[in-house]
């Protein structure tokens, strides 16, 4: 990805998301799930499980992963990859914190 074409958009404050929880950002047709871990790291994944499109934002967040609410696949928040024996990958978005503001990186990919 080219840094110059990366656009950073503020989507809200980290306090808007409960620890070990997630909120959604609507982005046109796509929904992006923003996760907040117990140690206040944030991650962004497309809200679509690589298995059968389950809404990952509705899952249980633990360590650096989320467990999909539909059939319990475990997805890495950092890479979007399915863990363990399952195979598949969800799109991950760049994200960073400016103080408490969550900045989502939406590049032309």
């Amino acid at each position, binding site marked *: 990805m080219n840094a110059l074409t990366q656009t950073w958009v503020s989507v*809200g404050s980290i306090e808007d998301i*409960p620890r070990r929880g997630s*909120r959604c950002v*609507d982005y046109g047709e796509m929904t992006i799930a923003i996760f907040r871990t117990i140690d206040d790291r944030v991650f962004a994944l497309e809200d679509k499980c690589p298995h059968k499109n389950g809404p990952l934002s*509705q899952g249980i967040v633990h360590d650096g992963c989320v467990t999909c609410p539909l059939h319990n696949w475990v997805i890495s928040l950092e890479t979007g990859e399915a863990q363990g024996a399952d195979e598949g990958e969800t799109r991950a978005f760049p994200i960073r914190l400016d103080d408490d503001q969550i900045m989502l990186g939406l590049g032309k990919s």
Partner: protein
Amino acid sequence: MSDKQKLVVIGNGMAPGRMLEYLFERAPDAFEVTIFNAEPRVNYNRLMLSPVLSGEKAYEDIITHDDDWYKTHGVTLHKSARISSIDRAAKTVTSDSGITVSYDQLVIATGSNPFIIPLPGHDLDGVLTYRDLDDVERMISVAKTGGRAVVIGGGLLGLEAAAGLRRQGMDVTVLHLMPTLMERQLDPAAGYLLEKAFQDLHIQVLTEASTKQILGYDGKVVGVELADGTRIDAAMVVMAVGIRPSAELAKLAQLETGRGVIVSDAMRTSDPDIFALGECAEHRGQCYGLVAPLYEMGKVIVEQLTGNNAAAYTGSVTATKLKVTGIDLYSAGDFAEADDREEIVLRDAAAGVYKRLVLKENRIIGAVLYGETADGPWFFDLLKKQTDISDMREMLIFGQAYQGGAPLDPSAAVAALPDDAEICGCNGICKGAITGTIVSKNLTDLDGVRAHTKASASCGTCTGLVEQLLSLTLGDSYDPAAVTPMCGCTDLGHNDVRRLIVAKGLKSIPAVMQELEWTTSCGCAKCRPALNYYLVCDWPDEYADDYQSRFINERVHANIQKDGTYSVVPRMWGGMTSSTELRAIADVVDKFDIPAVKCTGGQRIDMLGIKKEDLPAVWADLGKAGFVSGQAYAKGLRTVKTCVGTDWCRFGTQDSTGLGIRIEKFMWGSWTPAKLKMAVSGCPRNCSEATCKDIGIICVDSGFEIHFAGAAGLDIKGTEVLGMVKTEDEALEYVVALAQMYREQGHYLERIYKWAKRVGFDEVRRQIMDEPAKRKAYFERFVFSQKFAQIDPWSERVSGKDKHEFNPMAILQLEAAE
């Protein structure tokens, strides 16, 4: 049958239990066995009463032989039957309940009785002893009301009782007549360290304290008065000042008795057809109070019974360990000072370690270890074998690892033990027997070793050694976690976790993870919902529900569907509805364009395909019509199905619809380990299918037949009958008590039928049907928890709770990214 010899056993304690195991191994078909037990139960591991008292274990965990065992071995067990006379001429025994049985061979194994000092006030309500499960249950029930317990006696039993009662939340004072604790097993220095350790547990210890009288009011204990005039208030007094062999029955039968029932080396009493076994026996002037010698005696009796007349018991040396979590104490042999003795002492104040060996003529005759006891069995082995220690004298006190050059790591030390080194002191099992059995029986886990060798099956303190033997013998294929841990974050199983939450008073998920040493930083999707449920159930008033640890359905109070939309099922009490309710549902369906409406299998209506954002508005409209959540998503009370009963049906015997509604209104909102579905049918035609529910009621003319443990999902299983009651009020009380018992014991996601199978259908019946006090207590605890549970989650969310759940945090225009 008739050709078999009749063996009758009086007393069903630890000694005869083990003896019968040997017997059935040696000669499974030789005897027709009958056992009488004064206690109303099967054989259990008395040594583990202290963990039951402290809450670290449950009675179910310490059962040695369950009802099936007796059935399998064709043993007739008479529970609650105390033998009151032996007729030696007729060769019969008779119980106080009127059963008479004849014997060819008789074993008296009546154990001991706790000694009660006949102080003024010793017969007040609240003066207890510590010997059997009933004592423990009494202590736990007084402990629930709080206050102070005074334990008279600072020996092994008294201290274990004190520690257990402290863990149950009582203030505890130990009164001990001698200057230091456990003076029979410990030297004064170790006694002092022990006293300090008890003070650290916030247990008050008064030594040289002589009790003058027990004070009472209204027939109940209120305190004790010491000889120096000090008064201590007390809600309970536990007398643990010693035991007396229970020999009266033998004396009555004119057998030779002294302190106990006198036996020869063949373990026979003065009547050759009668043996005495266990704590009641007196052998060579000695009575024992620990299990290891008793098991030896049992072996000798089996040899004698099966024709080996040469078998002889020649006495035992014993070693003691105190079973109080957090205190390591080991003592064996004789440690009094005398001129011909030498001693080796090691003190490490910083580490809280004290070790003392007493030597006579270069042989160990006594050992006291405090703070670090791993070498106890090794010293005990040297002691029993009378090994000459001259060559290792210098490093002896540092333990086995330091013998012969460089220190060994613990597993190398175990590997270096000779095959005949004793590993399990209670059962006298040596290393070779354990490793041999692991190989010959292909054992892979601790339970297997316990089942086949008995090692680690009694007091459990050698468990670590046995595990090391498993891993030495099996190498990497040994997996100590094979006890089915809750999930990958811990080695503990559900039972242990539930018990420790209560025993240690853990009241939040981080506290559980910290104290029980979770291996992950914040758990996983398996353990977190389980822990959240356990905490909600155990501390209804104190625990703050952790919504982030709930599965999505319970977090947003609707069922997630395959396309990410939700379904909504309002309660229709007992399956009854009305035109107003139906109209409100129709309006909601139109207003929110809900794509599907369906009658569920649970006698109510499901609206499917609702967008998450719409949920609060849907609930607001449903709420206006009087609907509350149907909890169709919950590990909690789902539906109570009913039939039309006496209201309409020509066969109806009782108001099944009314009772179903009453139960549903009483129990809605409660969380349970897995979903809980109920039904009430108006007659045995059973139109509400009560006989495949978690809990069901079949109404009959004479009352209500309560059923439980049915299943009709992944497994299909008809219910078991719990029992009959006469009135609706009783039906409600029994059903609620049963549900609470399940709430407190079930593993997360374990339906009632699986739980009941695990703990035993009879045990459930016994507690709910036969123990009114227990039933009432379960009922009360359920009622208490409902105070915090019966809040409609939908109206809470309509009023704004968890608002963040239902809206996106941001809506971005596509241009923003361009």
